C-alpha cells in the first residue's frame, strides 16, 4: 500500500487540511470529510476575554484526525518556540507546523528564524514540520537539523496562484531524504495534482477549501487531484519532447506517392 510515512507514523491520505478562514465549523468539518484527510492544522491565539467563543476543538474528532498546531503569528524563532511549547502544554502530541512569518503582506517564511526555531524544537523532542521558502539549500539545513518533513511553499499563503516555485520544489524533491509536503498557494486540484506528479509526498491546502460555497465537494476534488497526481507519478510520466512523435503509424498511408 502506498502510505505516507512521517516520524514513524503511517497515513493513507496525502492531503493535509488547514482549518482557517471557514465560514462556519460545519463548513470546516465538511471540507475535512470531503478531503478524507488525516492531518489538520490549527493555530493558537489569545481567548477574547470580552467575547469568549466556544472552542473549535470540539468540532474536530481527535480519534480521526491528528491535530497539527501551527506557530502562525510568530515573527521570530522565540515566538515560534513559545507557541509550540504552549501547544504541547495543551496536551497535543508533540507535532508542530513551524511557521515564522514576520512580514504580514506576503507572509513569506523567514529562513533564518525558521532554522533557528527548528533546531531548538527538535532538541526538545518535537516532530517539526517546517513551512519554508522553496530553497533547496535551506531544505538541506532543516533536514540536518532533524525536521520530519519539508514544507516548501508553492506561492504565498492564500493567493491560490499554484506552483510558482515549481523549479525549486523539483530540486527539493530530488534531494530530500524526508517527505516533502507542498504547502501554500494551491488554489485548484490541478495544482495539487501537479505537485504530486512532480514527486511530492503530500500537500497541504486551506484557503481553496474555505473560499468556496461547497467545501465538501472541493475537499473531495482535492482528494481526487492528489490521488490522480500520485498515481501518475507512480505509474511513471513520459518525458516532454520538442519534436512531434506521431501516435498513429507512419507507414501504409492511403495516398499517391
Amino acid at each position, binding site marked *: 500500500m502506498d502510505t505516507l510515512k512521517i516520524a514513524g507514523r503511517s497515513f493513507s491520505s496525502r492531503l493535509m487540511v488547514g482549518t482557517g478562514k471557514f465560514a462556519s465549523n460545519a463548513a470546516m468539518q465538511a471540507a475535512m470529510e470531503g478531503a478524507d484527510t488525516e492531518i489538520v492544522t490549527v493555530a*493558537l*491565539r489569545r*481567548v477574547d*476575554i470580552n467575547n*469568549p467563543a466556544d472552542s473549535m476543538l470540539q468540532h474536530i474528532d481527535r480519534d480521526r484526525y491528528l491535530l497539527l498546531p501551527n506557530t502562525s503569528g510568530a515573527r521570530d524563532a522565540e515566538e515560534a518556540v513559545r507557541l509550540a511549547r*504552549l501547544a504541547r*502544554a495543551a496536551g497535543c502530541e508533540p507535532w508542530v507546523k513551524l511557521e515564522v512569518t514576520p512580514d504580514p503582506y506576503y507572509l513569506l517564511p523567514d529562513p533564518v528564524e525558521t532554522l533557528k526555531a527548528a533546531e531548538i524544537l527538535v532538541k526538545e523532542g518535537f516532530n517539526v514540520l517546517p513551512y519554508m521558502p522553496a530553497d533547496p539549500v535551506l531544505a538541506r539545513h532543516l533536514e540536518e537539523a532533524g525536521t520530519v518533513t519539508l514544507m516548501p511553499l508553492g506561492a504565498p499563503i492564500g493567493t491560490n496562484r499554484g506552483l510558482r516555485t515549481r523549479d525549486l520544489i523539483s530540486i527539493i524533491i530530488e534531494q530530500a531524504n524526508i517527505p516533502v509536503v507542498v504547502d501554500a498557494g494551491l488554489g485548484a486540484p490541478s495544482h495539487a495534482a501537479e505537485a504530486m506528479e512532480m514527486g511530492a509526498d503530500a500537500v*497541504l491546502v486551506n484557503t481553496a477549501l474555505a473560499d468556496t460555497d461547497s467545501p465538501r465537494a472541493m475537499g473531495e476534488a482535492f482528494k481526487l487531484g492528489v490521488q490522480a497526481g500520485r498515481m501518475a507519478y507512480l505509474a511513471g510520466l513520459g518525458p516532454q519532447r520538442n519534436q512531434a512523435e506521431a501516435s498513429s503509424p507512419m507507414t501504409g498511408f492511403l495516398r499517391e506517392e
Partner: protein
Amino acid sequence: MKITLNGEEREFGSELTIGELLTELGLQSNRVVIELNREILNLAEALPRQLKSADKLEIIQFVGGG
C-alpha cells in the same frame, strides 16, 4: 488585584486563583492553555495557583488556522 490579562490591564476585587478567574470569565478550563509570567502551566498547576497584582496572565486557545 490588578493584573495584565491577555495584554490588557484588568482590575479584580480580590486575589483570585487562576481556576477562580476562569470560572468568573465563564471559560472552560480544559479548552485553554495558561501562561503566567511567561511560564507555561499545565492545568493541574494552573487552577490552584494564586494570582497577585502585577501578574501577567495569558489564556490561549486553539482556533482555525492553516
